[in-house]
């Protein structure tokens, strides 16, 4: 019995740790319950789709897709264009998604190709690729737009005549999805339409898992060699997994920003990758196994912690900054812990596998 318990604790170490932290910080933060619930409901609608985008690459054995930031950039470019053309409301958001499609498809294809060249190091390659593409994105947004790429609406441009402003207001599309089907229950505003989109995304993933391509991805994820010898195009399948993940990340970023209502062009996409991955891991997912419940639990716990820790820091030691640092520590620490557990289990699994082969003294 104890070994099974030990395995349970190791597998869910991350989730248990976070639950303890919240249980400790919640009473100290003394935040009103209604505020917390309202915030969690809003953030569920805002972030879940982004975390959903991470599931496919995990299924295809490429680990946590730090390259999803490329999709976020595509989504942001879409939003910049529609606010330039002045398209508002739901049509504006849908048009932004359509614009982001070709961009995230190309970026996803490129990311998949590069990751195929760095097999075994996909995660750190995605991580560095995100920084590299951030440089290119900044070049496009701060220098190409307005000069090479025509921008109609001068209000969007920086004072020097080219480059997009630091903060772009999305007044035309602010919370368009959230308020489409307004629902007030016991004083709480519930973004029904956003939940519908997330449900649609989840349904798409479940349906996709049962297609031939989904089955190929599961096979490639578990053993590239065997899949190749069975004739599955391994390289193409991995690239498709990354492409779909990047496209979903683009759409997720549009949902995220319409809820926020503003884009800060140079920074709102950078933290997305890290927050979504931290949330997924808090939900109990690992580098090789992730499911939709992990996504939802992860988003709830992550944001509960996100809200509670600054207040707890303020009430406990009197400085809000402490809580802020503690929150960032937990986000980074959770990813570090999950990665260590994954590699450590991989190493011990390899040794155990050989042990079963052991002829051993029992001749």
């Amino acid at each position, binding site marked *: 019995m104890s070994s099974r318990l030990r395995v349970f604790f190791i597998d869910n170490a991350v989730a248990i740790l976070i639950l303890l932290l919240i249980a400790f910080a919640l009473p100290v933060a003394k935040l009103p319950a209604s505020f917390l619930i309202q915030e969690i409901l809003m953030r569920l609608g805002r972030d879940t789709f982004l975390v959903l985008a991470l599931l496919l690459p995990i299924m295809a054995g490429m680990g946590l897709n730090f390259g999803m930031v490329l999709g976020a950039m595509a989504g942001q470019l879409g939003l910049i264009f529609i606010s330039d053309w002045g398209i508002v409301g739901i049509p504006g958001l849908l048009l932004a998604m359509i614009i982001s499609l070709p961009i995230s498809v190309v970026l996803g294809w490129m990311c998949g190709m*590069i990751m195929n*060249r*760095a097999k*075994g*190091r996909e*995660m*750190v*390659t995605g*991580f*560095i*690729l995100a*920084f*590299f593409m*951030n*440089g*290119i994105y*900044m*070049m496009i947004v*701060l*220098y190409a737009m307005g000069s090479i790429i025509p921008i109609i609406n001068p209000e969007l441009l920086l004072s*020097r005549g080219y480059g997009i402003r630091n903060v772009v207001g999305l007044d035309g599309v602010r919370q368009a999805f959230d308020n489409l089907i307004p629902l007030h229950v016991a004083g709480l505003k519930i973004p029904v339409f956003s939940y519908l989109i997330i449900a649609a995304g989840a349904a798409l993933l479940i349906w996709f898992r049962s297609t031939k391509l989904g089955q190929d991805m599961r096979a490639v994820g578990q053993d590239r060699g065997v899949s190749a010898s069975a004739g599955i195009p391994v390289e193409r399948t991995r690239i498709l997994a990354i492409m779909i993940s990047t496209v979903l990340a683009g759409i997720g970023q549009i949902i995220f920003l319409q809820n926020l209502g503003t884009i800060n062009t140079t920074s709102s996409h950078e933290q997305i990758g890290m927050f979504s991955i931290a949330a997924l891991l808090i939900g109990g997912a690992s580098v090789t196994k992730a499911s939709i419940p992990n996504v939802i639990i992860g988003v709830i716990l992550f944001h509960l912690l996100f809200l509670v820790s600054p207040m707890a820091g303020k009430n406990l*030691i009197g*400085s809000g*900054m*402490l809580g802020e*640092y*503690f929150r*960032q*520590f937990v986000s*980074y*620490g959770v*990813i*570090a812990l999950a*990665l*260590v557990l*994954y*590699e*450590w289990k*991989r*190493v011990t699994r390899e040794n155990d596998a050989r042990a079963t082969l052991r002829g051993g003294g029992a001749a």
Partner: protein
Amino acid sequence: MEAVRRFISSFGLPRLLITVFLLLLFAVAPMVGVDLPSSLSDVLIRVGMNGIMVLAMVPMIQSGCGLNFGLSLGVLAGLLGSTISIETGAVGMAGFLTAILVGQGFGALFGFGYGKLLNRVKGGEMMIATYVGFSSVMVMCIAWVVLPFKSPTMIWGYGGSGLRTTISVEGFWRHILDDFLAFRLGQGFKVPTGALLVFLLVALAVWAFFHLKLGTAITAVGLNPTYAKASGININRMRIISVMMSTMLGALGIVVFQQSFGFIQLYDGPLYMAFPAVAAILIGGASVNKATLVHVIIGTMLYQGILTMTPEVFNAVLKIDMSDVIRVIVSNGMILYALTRTMKVAK
């Protein structure tokens, strides 16, 4: 034509492109009214500042632990050294040496724990190094607020507890190396001999270490761990030594950086400090498991050269400051190139 192609493949195409780009910058600079001597002395000062941080990459690459994205652990040790040294109020060389010694102590301690962790996760070091680095920077952010520092130059004016984000080393050991034996060639060109001397000295020490029996063993572990194991080498111990060395060099590097920069940057300061050092050594031609002194020196000069020259030349020529974007693209582009290459070694 064959000789050219062989040279390119040995020198590495991207490294060639960057060198040409830098030479172009140097050529264009005087034509657009950029004061070349002062830019060159800028480059030298920056080489003195960052050289040791790039050198800190060598031990872990040699031992096969890969690129040390967790260099920020060493930087934190150095920050602890500097803050404690200023707390004691020691000034001048005494202050500088206390900062270094205390930094080395913490560096060894952090390096040991960090090495033990990396030994458990062979194969997945780089990603874990990155996030262990990030989380320890955040832990230290909490420490900077909580630790009982009293020295007036460091704590927040009104609050009374917790350290300021940027602490000036003015009056303690600012430019203690840069001014040591510094001489000027003509009016603009100032050579920070002290810093360059220390950089070369430490580089020589690292070169010598890898000539010792222990250093040879570490190199073998990096090239072929099974070969090393078959020759009776304790692989884990060698890896831990290399990680400790890298972290201690990081601690030394940040203190040397601060004496030239003039400020200690706490809190978020060290978060992304590993990436420029990784990019520099890769631009120098190192690969994921082979790095030599030549790679360090060439890499630091090329990287810092680009960092200094792009803003000045671009401002003068195009009147737009794209240097920040170019730095991000060039440094991350290099790391990406190294990660996607197979284990080929550029001489």
